[in-house]
């Protein structure tokens, strides 16, 4: 028999493909209500009948290497075509992109090429060709083992793929934590469909977790591209990298320092002893650091418990400090009689005499309130929210008038008595210093003078000295005659909680810039063609996992954790961690696959692998350099 040419074989194959395609078109256009099997089965039947009628010719073709090569060529070109046409898109997509040409695409089923009837018929013919050539190969020897394993291995793979396509299932579950589902949404051609299939058991997503890579920070150098009209990053430096980068003849930059947890620290810098600029450093409760000096002489505790005042004792005059007393609330009254005004500070119980009038301050209520039922006044609290003084004034003639005057109620702080001959005005002073206790400290080179309610005393100061107050401890850490507070860049810890770098740019002028990662602002160089930013590297997801519970008849059978590359098989269904939703961390995309043909496929893989290794290692003995008979 003469040999078939490769070219002729290609033609035969294309014709077969064309006819198969016609059948697919008939099915999809006119008979698409029927299952495709109804059309495929007769097609196969016709092919079988034709094959029997021309059996020897058909076998001749299928046995031929040239025919096989022709088939491989056609399949190769088909696969190539499919890579240039986006697959499985809605019809509109092709009409928009290709216009009239899209009708050609549809006619040859190239919008879903790899699932088209003609393509799969080529694979079927390939399987037949492989089977026939193996079966009719008369050489049975260990030398030929590789041949048999490779060729049959491919047939087995294709059979496995077919079984998987017909009897297999590919589904999807859009899960949220806590949901329990008993069915999957079927996938067709890789897309979710509303069709569902019951699993026969329930699955519950009990947990979903997402893990990110540890955030890292970088100094990025950006270059402006005219082509894209955007900045593109061209260099990335880790904050620990101190290398100098030269961007032009004159200009270079480098990272001078890195502060993982940046804050402005106050640092005390001592000066010469001959100058005077006193400074005191305190520690409240061992944690809070307070610095007092010429810019800030007093510290008031936030709860009003105490206040600390600091100054420097210049001439060791002890008496200076004493002429001062603890200041609390002050009740100041201005008494105007006969044109003269007297200003007095009064307390409850005081009695004053002015111009013949006797004023008795019989009561003081810090938070005056009048009980209309009991018809009496009392103090609602000990806070001076409505300070009121009760005055009894007796005139020369023995007349007595009694009033309440209010320090914080305008209109009621002034009262005119005895027909206007006496006027009394009450002003309430919270005290220029709003604290219950005041402590005065006078520092000198090695002593500390303390004035508080207990009195005054001098302490030798060479180690931290603790004042104990009711609820807090105040420790005087250091006293300086001449020191300044300098704000410094510092880091609280090595944890990158607030990363910042000190960037130094050297060139025609030198400059230093503090760049904070949490507030990235670019620094422009070279007339805006380059830019520097210090920022966090893009978020990268390390892993994501789902915890699945498999439940049957209401009771838990199995609980597992699946992640990408670690699926779990339950009753023939394999559950894959497919995807996640960055906007909804309770969502987990689970893919469910059942593939009864998988065993065949794996077996075919092994056959092919072993076969090909066998073929390679039988160095040249298997491979005949002569042509076929």
């Amino acid at each position, binding site marked *: 028999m003469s040999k078939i040419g490769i070219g002729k074989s290609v033609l035969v194959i294309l014709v077969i493909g064309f006819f198969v395609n016609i059948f697919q078109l008939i099915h999809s256009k006119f008979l698409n209500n029927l299952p495709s099997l109804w059309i495929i089965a007769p097609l196969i039947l016709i092919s079988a009948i034709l094959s029997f009628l021309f059996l020897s010719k058909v076998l001749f073709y299928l046995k031929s290497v040239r025919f096989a090569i022709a088939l491989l*060529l056609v399949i190769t070109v088909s696969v190539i075509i499919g890579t240039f046409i986006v697959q499985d898109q809605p019809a509109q997509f092709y009409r928009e992109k290709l216009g009239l040409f899209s009708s050609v695409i549809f006619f040859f089923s190239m919008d879903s090429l790899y699932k088209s009837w003609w393509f799969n018929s080529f694979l079927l013919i390939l399987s037949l060709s492989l089977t026939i050539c193996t079966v009719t190969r008369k050489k049975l020897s260990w030398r030929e083992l590789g041949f048999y394993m490779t060729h049959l291995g491919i047939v087995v793979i294709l059979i496995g793929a077919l079984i998987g396509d017909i009897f297999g299932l590919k589904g999807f579950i859009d899960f949220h934590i806590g949901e329990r589902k008993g069915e999957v949404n079927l996938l067709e051609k890789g897309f979710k469909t509303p069709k569902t299939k019951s699993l026969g058991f329930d699955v519950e997503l009990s947990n979903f977790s997402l893990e990110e890579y540890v955030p890292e920070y970088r100094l990025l150098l950006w270059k402006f591209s005219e082509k894209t009209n955007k900045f593109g990053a*061209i260099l990335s430096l880790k904050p620990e990298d101190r290398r100098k980068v030269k961007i032009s003849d004159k200009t270079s930059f480098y990272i001078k320092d890195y502060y993982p947890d940046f804050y402005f620290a106050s640092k005390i810098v001592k000066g010469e002893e001959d100058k005077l600029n006193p400074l005191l450093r305190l520690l409240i409760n061992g944690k809070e650091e307070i610095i007092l000096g010429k810019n800030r002489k007093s510290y008031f505790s936030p709860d009003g418990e105490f206040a600390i005042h600091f100054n420097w004792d210049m001439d060791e005059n002890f008496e200076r400090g004493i002429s001062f007393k603890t200041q609390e609330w002050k009740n100041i009254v201005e008494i105007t009689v006969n044109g003269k005004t007297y200003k007095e500070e009064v307390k409850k119980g005081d009695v004053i005499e002015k111009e013949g009038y006797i004023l008795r301050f019989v009561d003081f209520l810090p938070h005056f309130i009048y009980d209309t039922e009991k018809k009496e006044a009392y103090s609602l609290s000990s806070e001076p929210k409505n300070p009121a003084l009760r005055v009894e004034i007796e005139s020369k003639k023995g007349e007595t008038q009694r009033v309440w005057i209010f320090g914080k109620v305008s209109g009621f702080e002034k009262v005119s008595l005895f027909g206007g001959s006496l006027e009394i005005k009450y002003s309430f002073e919270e005290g220029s210093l709003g604290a219950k206790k005041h402590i005065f400290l006078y520092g000198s080179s090695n002593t500390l003078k303390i004035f508080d309610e207990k009195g005054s005393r001098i302490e030798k100061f060479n180690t931290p000295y603790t004042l104990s107050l009711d609820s807090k401890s105040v420790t005087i850490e250091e006293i300086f005659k001449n020191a300044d507070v300098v704000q410094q860049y510092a880091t609280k810890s090595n944890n990158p909680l607030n990363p910042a770098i000190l960037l130094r740019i050297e060139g025609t002028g030198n400059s230093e810039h503090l760049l904070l990662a949490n507030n990235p602002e670019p620094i422009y160089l070279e007339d805006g063609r380059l830019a520097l930013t210090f920022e966090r590297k893009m978020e990268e997801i390390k892993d994501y996992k789902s915890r699945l519970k498999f439940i049957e008849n209401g009771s838990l059978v199995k609980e597992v954790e699946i992640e990408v590359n670690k699926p779990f098989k339950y009753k023939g269904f394999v559950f894959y961690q497919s995807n996640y939703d960055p906007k909804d961390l309770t969502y987990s995309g689970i893919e469910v696959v059942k593939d009864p043909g998988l065993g065949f496929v794996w077996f075919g893989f092994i056959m092919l692998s072993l076969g090909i290794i066998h073929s390679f290692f039988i160095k040249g003995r298997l491979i005949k350099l002569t042509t076929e008979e």
Partner: protein
Amino acid sequence: MISIIFGRMPILFKLSLISYGISFFVYLLYFLKRKLIPKFLPTIIFLISFLLNFSLFISTWISYGHPPIRTLYETLIFFSLTVAFLYILMEFLTKLRFIGIFASAFSFFALFYSLFKADIDKINLPAALQSFWFIPHVIIYFIAYSALFISFVTAILYLIFPEVKELPDNHWLEQKYLDFDKFTYKIIQFGFVCLTLGLLIGGVWAKEAWGDYWGWDPKENWSLITWLIYLIYLHLRFVKGWRGKKAAYFAILGFLAVIMTYLGVNILPTAESSLHTYQ
């Protein structure tokens, strides 16, 4: 900007690039003016280049915490390494030094090209690549690609020197026999085994990660196309009139498919839907 582009590279990269460049010139000079260059010199320099390239690869692996065989930049460095490795092996077995010109040129240009595609920073491994199969899949493929590159060179050489003949003792090719056709065929056999294994490992991994061993993805398709072209080449040996020149064309076509698989898929309009494209 060239100074920044080159300057930002690790020192081992700069040394490897320069070293490959030097070895290319030395190999070239060796064949142009045999008397000038001692016999062993090109090999030594190329060996040094390979060791520098290997050190670069290992040091990058250590600093990243995962094998640097993922991005275009990383794989270009790895590709230059595997070509160098296979060539050294080949030179040792066959003494066909002439190929050294092309191997060193390839490794040099792969590194040079990577200068412009350099990742400015390490990219951490996404969840999909955290699998046992990642390393064997990529390594086998690049060994395959390297062997097929060599076959590409010898196929072209066959077209230039088609006659099979016996060579005189001091022939510049340093071989007894000149049969580039047979040589190409043998290398393709090796490359094809690696291609097949790589393809199958890819299927096993795809099943574990994505639920299916084959997805008709553009990258998968081009790796299949490459495999099919070489499969056709291997079968053409049995067809009268299809060995020799026509086979050489297929070998060349096959390597073009390799380039398409490696680089081209990112340019295809279908690439967006692919899970395989480089960022």
